[in-house]
């Protein structure tokens, strides 16, 4: 497979919900045979961290036009719509 991609996980503080989501997505993608590098930051820091990432997954609204794909989802916190969210993440990483 191509070079391992980097996913930036964002939430309000960069320590709580993005931690849960990063671990959940990393594990679920591993089961699908995809390995990723994970990074975390605060929602307010995304613009400055985005240059070398392939995808941003956030639990909170981010500014528009960041120039990289962004998926905002609570699925990995609430459990609702998890499979759909994973499909979207996988599709974004395969592009």
């Amino acid at each position, binding site marked *: 497979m191509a070079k391992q991609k980097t996913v930036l996980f964002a939430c309000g*503080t960069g320590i709580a919900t993005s*931690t*849960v989501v990063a671990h959940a997505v990393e594990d679920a993608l591993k089961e699908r045979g995809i390995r990723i590098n994970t990074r*975390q930051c605060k929602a307010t820091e995304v613009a400055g961290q985005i240059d070398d990432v392939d995808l941003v997954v956030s*639990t909170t609204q981010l500014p528009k036009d960041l120039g990289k794909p962004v998926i905002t989802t*609570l699925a990995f*916190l*609430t459990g609702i719509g998890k499979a759909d969210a994973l499909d979207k993440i996988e599709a974004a990483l395969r592009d």
Partner: protein
Amino acid sequence: MAEALLNALDPGAIVLGVKAASDHDVIRILANRLQELGYVKPSFADAVIAREAALPTGLPLGGDNNVAVPHTDPEHVLKPGLALATLAEPVMFSNMEDADEKLPVSVVFVMALNDKDKQVEMLQEIAGTIQSPAIIASLIAAKSIEDVSRLLG
């Protein structure tokens, strides 16, 4: 099972059947408990309330029993801990994903976090609890700290 969650949840910071007037009210009740128990600095309550206004923490679970997980930056935290309130009547929190949407919330976890790498397990167990409608419904019905320990244990 949810050992990290129970370890983090101080029995002195569990408040059941709270009659709270607002999201601020319930945050302050739990933040004050955490402060009295030595988990957080006096600045914690105001910091959590300010953050909740800017970046809300309500999580929609698809029904009337939603959950909120208010927290703030590590600088206001002395040691990691967790406080839990169940509400006699739901109060409104804004949706984390869409701040314009208000959610009736019946269960509130106030989280005192200072090191994400050490608190991963606790955070994952909170998420696991939130993802179980049966546990959330039982928490809301819990009458005693022992009930809560049994449910989360």
